[in-house]
């Protein structure tokens, strides 16, 4: 009840703009020391600190049960936190919840929609719920952008899963949020919708919307995100610029299946930092993607010189996925 009514009618764009000019570095979401212990005693979040920058696409990665959804739910007001503070564009999510929540659109993981309403009615409902006056033109535009136009008067219950997902995105966008949370947006979504969705995310970002997404599909984060955060066991393990992360941790791996088992790595090959498998049957060589370090060719020459013969060889690029798996395993 703290939001002055006038606030709702002044264009949010203008307000954000002027604010960002005054304090350019102010994060749009600031999470500090947020913890969550559920009634069952499960400690879902342990003093999480995280800042989301205005206008970025932030990917939050983590295995199932890591606390991604709990964190999002706390910021959005669905789950009560046990400790810490969260501000959204400077508004505390408890004391100034109206201002904070009206900036946020949420597309949750589960497909939960008002089954018996028409598509257009559910979008209008969401817009009203977030305190915005009716705007048929805008709702029509969203319906068209999401390829829902043909289904606008269909009952939601008659739609396919992918279409329902589009409806949920439409609902989240209907009140013109400045921040959009996409919780596992592409789980169980076909290629076409996935591409549509990423096109939409890019458009939104261009229009100044901050996007926070969680995903299991790490290639998506790799493709879309400006920054990546990894959460595991309720703790933020790492927050890094995506390109920086790829550069730092991105690697190539070559595995050699040996003809004869080795007891130890020959001294002549020590400069390669090879790893010998426990059974001595294979060697693994890990090297930087953009490395100027000795490449594969010289290793192969040196292997021959050292009399190590191999049956087979394969190489693979470590993706963000492996980086992620490594981080999660070691955290």
């Amino acid at each position, binding site marked *: *009840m703290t*939001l002055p*009514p006038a606030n709702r009618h002044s264009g949010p764009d203008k307000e954000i703009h002027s604010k960002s000019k005054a304090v350019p570095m102010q994060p749009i979401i600031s999470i500090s020391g947020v913890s969550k212990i*559920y*009634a069952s005693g499960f400690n879902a979040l342990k003093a999480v600190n995280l800042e989301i920058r205005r206008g970025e696409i932030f990917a939050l990665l983590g295995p199932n049960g890591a606390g991604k959804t709990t964190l999002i739910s706390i910021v*959005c*007001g*669905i*789950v*009560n936190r046990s400790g810490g503070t969260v501000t959204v564009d400077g508004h505390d999510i408890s004391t100034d*919840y*109206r*201002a*904070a*929540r*009206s900036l*946020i659109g*949420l597309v*949750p993981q*589960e497909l*939960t*929609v*008002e*089954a*018996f*309403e028409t598509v257009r*009615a559910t979008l*209008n*409902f*969401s*817009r*009203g*719920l*977030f*305190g*915005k*006056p009716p705007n048929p033109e805008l709702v029509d535009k969203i319906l068209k952008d999401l390829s829902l136009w043909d289904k606008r008067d269909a009952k939601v219950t008659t739609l396919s899963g992918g279409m329902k997902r589009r409806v949920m995105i439409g*609902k989240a966008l209907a009140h013109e949020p400045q921040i959009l949370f996409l919780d596992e947006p592409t789980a169980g979504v076909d290629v076409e919708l996935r591409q549509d969705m990423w096109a939409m995310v890019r458009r939104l970002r261009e229009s100044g919307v901050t996007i926070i997404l969680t995903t299991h599909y790490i290639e998506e984060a790799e493709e879309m995100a400006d920054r990546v955060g990894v959460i595991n066991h309720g703790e933020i393990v790492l927050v890094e610029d995506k390109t920086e992360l790829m550069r730092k941790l991105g690697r190539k791996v070559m595995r050699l299946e040996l003809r004869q088992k080795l007891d130890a790595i020959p001294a002549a090959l020590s400069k390669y930092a090879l790893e010998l498998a426990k059974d001595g049957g294979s060697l693994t060589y890990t090297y930087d993607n953009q490395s100027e370090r000795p490449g594969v060719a010289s290793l192969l020459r040196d292997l021959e010189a050292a009399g190590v013969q191999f049956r087979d060889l394969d190489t693979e690029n470590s993706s963000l996925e492996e980086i992620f798996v490594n981080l999660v395993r070691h955290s």
Partner: protein
Amino acid sequence: MNRHAIWAIYRVEMARTMRTLLQSVVSPVISTSLYFVVFGAAIGSRISEIGGVSYGAFIVPGLIMLSLLTQSISNASFGIYFPKFVGTIFELLSAPVSYLEIVIAYVGAAATKSVAIGLIILATASLFVPLHIEHPIWMLCFLVLTAVTFSLFGFIIGIWAQSFEQLQLVPLLIVTPLTFLGGSFYSIDMLPGIWRTITLFNPVVYLISGFRWSFFGTADVSLGVSLGMTLAFLFACIAVVGWIFKTGYRLRT
């Protein structure tokens, strides 16, 4: 005040009523007609008058109350339980709406519907028996007050319930018996001494008595007591709803 949100919820809830028009409106009309046939015609022919009022007319306020109570509870409890059940509640919880606004919207919609049903039953009843309403303003006051109070009560049940069975439990095991035993179809003066005293612990007695007074100017208990008990129940429900929202009981984990 987020009036757009109140209006949005209210409209969705009313749309649900319109979608289920047959169940929402036609069924109370049919059941009222059946009550008239059974109680009015069959029993009424043996009971001629109660307190100077023909038996057929006497049961009208009780019948309206019976529907008002059950409809208010079922509408309001279903209205908030269903989003919880299918998961769409997340949107309500993440929206910039205050608890007060949520209650106004849901309870307002449920009460609107049950008042409408009450008036439809009244119209149906007037086809069976000649009716003269002594205090129409009071009649409307009791109608609205009871609808709001029991819609609040239903809202509480809807938040408390964790299964469809629990949703039906309170109306079935508590409210319906209390209504039937609360003098819908008889004056509590007709009961033997001890039962009359026991009946006075039934809050529904006061609702029906006050409502009946607005029709005929006579009542089992005084108007002041009726009104007082109704308001007391209203404030009790408001207090519980306040507590629910303060603690996030079964809404926010």
